[in-house]
């Protein structure tokens, strides 16, 4: 298993009930999972916990066998750098960096960095893989929304993560672009064996993924038989 959630509960101040309430789940290597549910049901929280961006109040999150709650801030950062890739709804590209530079950002987080040539080559290959060959040196302001999101996907893959977490990656895209992005994610899953967990409101995208994890009021809803 890549990641395991064991009876995870998470609350935030000011809210009447926990955002996640005793959620348990497992993610196998190479698996694709769609996390669905109404707004406010805890989908993004689940993703944050999986990625070590937050810690549960109750329960454990194991990533690569390591209990994330027991890790220091720096250790969590290291895990994110080497094990997890993030794709957000808002691409969050740095406007002052070109596409290839944005893709290379996670390399700065590695304790032992590959050579500059290796990193550059990999970044360009990834941009080519996501269909942005020839646009490596463009700034985000010179790219379309879909292109920016693809740069974000390439960035998430630069350190060869075993788990890719995508929080509504197509939420800000039009249908055609969203479909293309979904194709890309699935292709990368198949080519690289990366486990894929996607929070989405899109039934079409959810249907294309291997498993479905539905949350309601912070709890996992068992799929209907």
């Amino acid at each position, binding site marked *: 298993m890549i990641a395991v959630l064991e009876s995870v509960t998470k609350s935030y101040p000011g809210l009447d009930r926990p955002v996640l309430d005793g959620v348990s789940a497992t993610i196998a290597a190479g698996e694709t999972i769609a996390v669905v549910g109404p707004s406010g049901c805890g989908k993004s929280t689940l993703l944050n916990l999986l990625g070590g961006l937050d810690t549960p109040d109750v329960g454990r999150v194991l990533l690569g066998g390591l209990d994330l709650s027991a890790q220091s801030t*720096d250790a969590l*950062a290291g895990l994110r750098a080497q094990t*997890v890739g*993030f794709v957000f709804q808002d691409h*969050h590209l740095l406007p*002052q960096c070109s596409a290839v*530079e944005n893709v290379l*950002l996670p390399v*700065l987080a590695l304790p032992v960095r590959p050579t500059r040539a290796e990193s550059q080559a990999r970044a360009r290959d990834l941009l080519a893989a996501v269909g942005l060959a020839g646009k490596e040196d463009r700034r985000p302001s010179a790219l379309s929304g879909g292109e920016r999101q693809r740069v974000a996907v390439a960035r998430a893959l630069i*350190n060869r993560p075993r788990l890719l977490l995508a929080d509504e990656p197509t939420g800000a895209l039009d249908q055609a672009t969203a479909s293309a992005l979904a194709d890309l994610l699935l292709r990368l899953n198949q080519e690289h064996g990366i486990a894929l967990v996607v929070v989405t409101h899109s039934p079409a995208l959810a249907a294309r993924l291997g498993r479905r994890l539905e949350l309601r009021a912070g709890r996992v809803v068992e799929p209907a038989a």
Partner: protein
Amino acid sequence: MTPLRLVLRSAVHHWRAHLAVALGVVVAAAVLTGSLVVGDSVRHSLRAQALVRLGWVRHALAPPGRFVRQDLVERLSRQQGDQVRLAPLLVLRGVGADADGTRRANRVQVMGVDHRFFAAESAGGPTLAALRGGVVLNRVLAAALGVKVADNVLLRVEKPGVLPRDVPLSAAAESTVVVRLPVTAIIGPDQLGDFALGADAIAPANAFVDLATLQRRAGLDGLINLAVWSSGPSADQGGADELTVERLTRDLRATWTPADSQIEIRDLPTQQAVEVRTARIFLDPATVTAVGRAAGVLTYFVNELRVGGRAAPYSMVAAGDWAGMPAAAPIPGDLADDEVAINTWLADDLKAKTGDALTVKFWALGATGGLIEQSASFRVRAVVPVSGLAADRELMPQFPGIADADHCRDWKPGLPVDVDRIRDQDETWWEQHRGTPKAFISLAAGEKLWRNRFGERTALRLPRVDGAAAAVAQRLADGLDPTALGLVITDVRAHALAASGRAMDFGGLFLGLGCFLIVAALVLAGLLMALGLDRRRREVGILLAIGLRPALVGRLLLCEVALAVMVASAVGAVVGGWYARAIIAVLAGQWAGAVGGAPVQYHATTTSFAIGVLATVVLAVLVLWRGTRRLGRERVRALLAGSDAARPGNVSTLRRWFRRSGPVLIIAGALIGLLSDPHRGGMAVAGAYFAAGALALGGLIAVIDQLLARLAGRGLPVWSLFGLAVSNLARRPGRSLAVVGMLACASFLVLSIGAFRRDPLANATRRDSGTGGFALVTETTLPVAGDLAALVDRQRLGLDVPALKDAAFIGLRANQGDDASCLNLYHSPLPRLVGVDPARLAALSAFAFAAHAPLPAAGASPWTLLARDAARPLAGDAPVPAIADQATLQWSLGLGLGGELDYRDEHDRAFRLRIVGVLADSVMQGNLIIDEGVLAARFPSQGGYRLLLVDVPAASTDLAAAAIDNALADYGSRSLRATDRLAAFLAVERTYLDIFQTLGGLALLLGSFGVGVLVLRGVLERRGELAALRAIGFRGSALRRLLIGEHLVLLALGLVAGVVAGLVAVYPALLAPTAQTPWRLLGATAAAIVVSGVGWIGLSTWWALRGDALASLRSE
């Protein structure tokens, strides 16, 4: 991608935000660097001034209170060759006046020089003809007298006697001589016009006359008291100076002869003796020691010799080592200390015989500086014939005013002589025997009666054998170090440079005065940086999310900021140069009091610029580092969402405690204020009230913080636009508190500095005030001798006038030390010593002590700590106790109670001073006060009083001052109200406070600008929200009222908190009837703050609300 590349890209991309931060850093760098440059400029100016004053002079020989033969200088000059420049001078104190006496100048240095002093000094220097044809003035003296070339001036010049005028047997002849001369040239400082050996920021008043002329007029033919040397020729060509003090001293020792120091070795064949004596009457102890085994003589002029009802007036009595005399003497060699041998003439005159009791009456110097008649009784041991040694008229030294007189009635000995008492037989005796003593006592008895600070011998006699005179001369040359006679060569240039180098650090001073401006600028920079980073929360979140460690993210942000800081610091350093020029310009004008009027020229060093840049970078990075670090440690989730972590639940423990401590701080401040007595005045009370105000300020800010936190937590029902405005304050409580805190702190500091303004007139008539209760302080150029309580002396000095009938004087002696007051910027390694009778000040309990050593007895006055054994003032090795003003100790000498200072006396003997008392804010600033007897013993040539503390009724103070200055005009008297003198000293402090308040005011304006930036930023962030309010029907005017209302509340809170706390701090000053608090300045500052704050708020609101509301909505 590398970290450096990311930093550079980010720095360029966010240049606007960095520019805002940079502006704050530029201000900080400008003030910091500019302050250092001001320090450079003052130091450089003092150094340049010192070097210009000295000109070519490097070394000097200036025996205090003594003269040497000019021939010594000529012999040294021949020995050292033409390569060495050497010039003799005769320097006397004097008073100058214009031709009709309407304008006068005290403390004039009258210098007799020859062609070697000015030779080819610079183009336009005075010629020899100019010197011989009249007097050359420097510009200072010419301006003071209002004269130009060809005008006549009067110089009243001190005419030194062989002994100071206050010593019995000094001549009664005129102590000054008037010289009337035409002005032949007026020279500037670069022509040696301001020549002076001492270090004083104020240029001296100099008059140069021909050396031979001055020697002749002053009765000092062939004598000088200053010799000056240049550097050696190698030094002039850039090499090491071979003319060191050591070498010059060796040359001096090799060249000097006893005759150069007025020591005379005489051959007395009749007495079968070689005699050593001096034109100074009394032989120095060092001379006596060097001569070695010899028979000593101490002869004195007595008022009366009496046996029973018969008396002989005005005779000589000799005390001697009669057994050791070379010549056979009829005088018994084993006289006991209570025995006297009289000659037959006296025995006949007094009808005296062996066994009779003989009383000797004589004048001695009393404790109050006047003469007192003392007497001593002896038993007549023998009556000796007037023959042999008993007929030796050479036993009498050359007493001035006596030795040269043809008749007794022509005597002018400086002692009261009633010529009516002189009988015919006395005249006959004088005609036949001149100064031959009529009575003889033992040497020990004579020492006991007549020893004084100059010595205990008037002559030494040795057996007259072949070569004895030469042998004695050789013994003196070998055994007597001329330095023991005050012939000490000093490197005056090194001393001057040291005095300028160790002068008051104006760089540090202006750093301190401007620290608030620096802090405000850096705080503003930090605030602007925080605002800029706030906009990059998502960016920081993604960096953390993709795995960069928080520390790395923090470092990346810091490096970015540091880049901007480094550039800004460099720019700021350049601006600092202009800031320094502006400060220097004001120091020449309105703030001249801070530099005592000394001219300051701009001078900057690379070192100061480098330090300014480096220090600013370090300070700015330290201030900004926390902000960068903080952001990197926030929750990633919150950063990605762009939400503000400053929610009520996220407050640190420290912040919570601070909020709760508000009432406690206010109560603590109130207690301190209540427990202090505001009427007492003084720095301690001012400090207490400042502390009370500061606590109140902290408490008020904490209360406001708590209020904002509660508003944020609970919210308020919003029923009005004002209610909405108030509730908006709590949305960003941290930002609101920053605005309130900045304004409150700034206004408090500016206002509360007024607490430290002292009123020099407060309680000025009290004995325990800074004036000591004295109405006047009089300083004279020439010493005033006499007992100022005795009618005879007051009549002699012209002080017996109606305006002074109720006046009481306390005289203080002074040596020629440096002015160590705050009015002299130069460091004063050897501050002026003044000597006082401690008992007189103790009896009055004069002056207030800030601290003192443990008292010898309960209830004793601290002045008693100065007392030494009057009979043996130099006994023991213990340091000499001294009392000084607090400002002198703290700022000039860097000493405190118990501190010690090394000093050298007139004989170049080292001794130590120990501070046993510290005066609080007194008119005695600049001096070290010691026992009068110690001063006289250490500096015997400094006779008379040069400082007078005068008690007169308050109503007649001005009349008394005029009367004293009129009577003592020839002494160069200048009387000042004691309160005015104190005010002059406090003016320096007042100037510093003005500077602090001005710079603080600038900081306040900077703070209000920061408020404006905060306002603008906050409003811009809320554009969408404001647009939504427009969309739902709020008019533009309503929105403006909303925004302005919000921020005016913050402005008002900040100002009220600062003003209330500030008023607590200045409470004592408010009570003083003649307080010096600058209400106008403070009012103007407060008004500027209000206007500036309102202006910025209005401008920001207008800027934010301009444009199309719907466009804002769309962009949201």
